């Protein structure tokens, strides 16, 4: 659905003239291919062959100058521009809800430099995470950023959506991995931040764009921190009598200054799923999967300390197999199946976070609210910090028809996020906002905070061309036409 009107043929010719005909398409079948990302609601709709929202044009820039050309034209003509790289987002952030131009960055995939003295790599935004790790691993390095979407997500998207990988407890979240950015602003101007380890010259501008999901500017190049590949990687699992005991053990890890590569504590429902092939756990028991990944000496020390803490808490050691099995099969749930995408089925994952003081309360309240609507849940806690952690609440259910499933999907999200907010949590830890959580942005940031974000958007993008409607920004400037694909974002 296009809410703007512009002469597509003329604009196409103009862009083709500037960046070459091979880098532009308005073919209908191509436009349908760009009508989706990995948002479950959009996939449910696509499963019914709903082919909107479609862009009017797809543009594949290969240089920064190409992006500048396109944005200058879009600004002059007030054409919406939706940047996309991997297109693996799960919140609708790359959906061209108002038509216009999809700017696919995947042809900007060059590796610009590896600085083995500073331990940084500089890459263009359209390089896939998998491609980057392939390049680094043969040279003995890694960024350590390993999201489940790594085969399909790109480096620009990692930054734009403020991503976190499964090993982030050791390697950091993506905002910590980014050293510097190059960004094209909506008016075509180029911003480069300095490649320095840190600065106190006022606010850190790069952080303004990390998490802005293409609403403030288009990230085109990134310098990232890299680490040597770990000397040793070992796996371990422990079974705790209940969730609370497991949580207390994890907190003790941090109090003993441990920084494991992976800490995942599963609730009783997901424990049954995770341990299915290994053990039938007692009622209420919760499994903790761990990965140690460091030098051999450090791994040995971590193992000894962790084992002491877990055994003192009454946990049963399960050996390395459950954790290793999870690691080897961690992408399985990312493949579509008749279970999660069958007609009438609904599913998704809420990724929230809170301080330890609120974390367990938030979990129980969310679970109660969501299960009341007749869906099943299973959850795990991961991405732990010294002061708190996140929860993945996975829900799955069904309804009489696909349309009813989509409506129920929205209700489940609404009660889940309400419960998280009331318990003092953030409504997204790492999946971002997109359209799904756009209506919740004022709730998350409060009226003053959200007004500030709106003012920044207005300053940077007065014509509201860049990814309009995402993050709930710019909606005043252009009344929302996103509703048909924003059902997950029912008003809070």
């Amino acid at each position: 659905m296009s809410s703007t009107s512009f002469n597509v043929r003329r604009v196409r010719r103009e862009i083709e003239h500037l960046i070459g005909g091979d880098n532009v398409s308005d073919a209908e079948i191509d436009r349908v291919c760009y009508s989706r990302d990995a948002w479950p609601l959009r996939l449910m709709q696509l499963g019914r062959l709903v082919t909107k929202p479609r862009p009017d044009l797809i543009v594949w820039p290969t240089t920064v100058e190409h992006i500048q050309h396109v944005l200058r034209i879009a600004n002059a003509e007030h054409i919406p521009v939706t940047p996309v790289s991997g297109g693996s987002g799960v919140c609708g952030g790359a959906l061209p809800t108002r038509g216009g131009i999809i700017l696919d960055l995947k042809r900007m995939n060059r590796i610009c430099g590896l600085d083995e003295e500073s331990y940084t790599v500089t890459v263009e935004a359209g390089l896939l995470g998998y491609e980057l790790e392939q390049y680094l691993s043969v040279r003995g390095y890694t960024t350590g950023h390993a999201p489940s979407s790594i085969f399909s997500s790109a480096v620009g998207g990692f930054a734009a959506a403020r991503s976190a990988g499964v090993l982030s407890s050791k390697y950091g979240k993506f905002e910590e991995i980014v050293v510097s950015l190059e960004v094209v602003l909506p008016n075509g101007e180029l911003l480069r931040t300095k490649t320095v380890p840190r600065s106190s010259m006022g606010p850190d501008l790069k952080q303004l764009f990390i998490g802005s999901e293409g609403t403030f500017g288009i990230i085109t190049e990134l310098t990232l921190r890299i680490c040597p590949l770990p000397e040793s990687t070992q796996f371990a699992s422990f079974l705790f009598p209940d969730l609370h005991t497991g949580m207390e053990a994890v907190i003790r890890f941090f109090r003993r200054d441990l920084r494991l590569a992976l800490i995942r504590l599963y609730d009783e429902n997901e424990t049954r799923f995770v341990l299915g092939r290994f053990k039938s756990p007692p009622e209420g028991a919760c499994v903790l999967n761990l990965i140690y990944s460091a030098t051999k000496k450090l791994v040995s020390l971590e193992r000894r300390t962790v084992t002491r803490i877990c055994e003192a808490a009454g946990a049963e050691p399960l050996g390395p197999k459950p954790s290793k099995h999870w690691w080897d099969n961690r992408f399985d749930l990312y493949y579509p199946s008749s279970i999660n995408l069958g007609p009438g089925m609904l599913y998704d994952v809420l990724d929230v976070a809170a301080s330890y003081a609120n974390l367990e309360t938030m979990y129980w309240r969310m679970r109660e609210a969501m299960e009341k609507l007749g869906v099943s849940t299973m959850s795990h806690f991961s991405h732990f910090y010294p002061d708190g952690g996140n929860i993945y609440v996975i829900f799955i259910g069904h309804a009489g028809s696909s349309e009813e499933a989509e409506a129920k999907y929205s209700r489940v999200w609404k009660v889940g996020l309400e419960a998280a907010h009331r318990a003092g949590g953030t409504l997204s830890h790492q999946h971002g906002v997109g359209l799904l959580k756009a209506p919740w942005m004022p709730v998350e940031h409060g009226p003053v905070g959200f007004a500030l974000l709106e003012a920044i958007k207005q300053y940077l993008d007065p014509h509201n061309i860049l990814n309009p409607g995402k993050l709930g920004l710019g909606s005043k400037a252009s009344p929302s036409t996103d509703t048909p694909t924003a059902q997950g974002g029912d008003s809070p």
Partner: protein
Amino acid sequence: MSGSPPPSSSDALDQFAKVSRLCSLCARMCRHACPTHVATRSDACSPVGRALVVELYRGHKTALTETPVDRLYQCTLCGACKAWCKPGHELPRIIELARERVIQEHRAPLGIIDLDQTVSKHNNVYSEPHEKRFASLAPVLEQQHSGDNVIYFVGCTTAYRHPEIATAAIHVLNRLGVTAHILQNEVCCGSPLVRAGYTETARTLARQNVEAIATSGIRTVLTTCPGCARALKHDYPKLNTPLPGSTTVFHITEFLAKRRRQLQRLLTSPTTTQGSTSTAVTYHDPCHLGRELGVYNPPRQLLQLLPGIRLVEFQNTRDHADCCGAGAVLPKTFPQLAAEIAHRRLDDAAQTGASLLISSCPNCKQHLTSHQTPSSAMPFLDLMELLARALK
């Protein structure tokens, strides 16, 4: 979008409806491995994009007009998507079936619009005279002594473009006491036609070859072309033209790997080049041989036999090996895309540091050598050529 007449309920595509639906909704878990996507970086030119074309067609949301047809034919059917798919969805088979519909609706892309007529008329894909199919093999065939009898199914590309592979293969077989019999009425195996959607013409060719094999009385068939091997083993039964019951088809590397001990006794001369003590070679897994027939170890076992040869693997190898770009008539339909894919594979070969590129497929050889540039001009040999040199 305009609709098209609904396919009949018996349409084979419908049998794969669940798979094409799931592939169209996938989070793109195989896109990074698709050679055409890697070359174009377009989501439309990707496994998910093609599955979506099929779904939209099945749901009467698109007709098989030029661009949807282009997207279906911008695929080498290399099977890399399948290798990365944990549930193992058979998207390449779905694309083949969709191409059948394209042909039935007379919507073939320009590059292959008369492919079936060409092959029907000449019995090969190169419009070469049928009577010259084995012309260059006559001297080596005449020198054969009697031994264990096998049929050597030569195939179009080996016969007309790379007879040196056939000469080498026959030499190696002879040294092992095996007599290679050529089917004088051999015709194209039909693989390119099956891949392009011309199923009926492929069936006609299959019948001719099956009859020739049946008449020969020999029940062991060897090929040097993985495409021919796949056609004889897997496509012919699907075309309802199976080989005589007791017939066994081998790619020649499988056949020879079973005779490794015998080969080893014959191998005496080092095959090193330019006086060095060892030659680093890299091995390109042909898609039909690897992912389709599961033949990964035999070529490597043969390479290990060769004195002075050291195998250095590609970064993407075995079931994750990248396609050379020659698959499924892509050089005819989208030559520029096919060339781009070849250049990437050649660059990857150079990255290995090897000084010799080896494969076991005349089509890979044909395509890769024709796209070598001064910077990627690594000598290329079929494994049979390397073996034959070592046995001289």
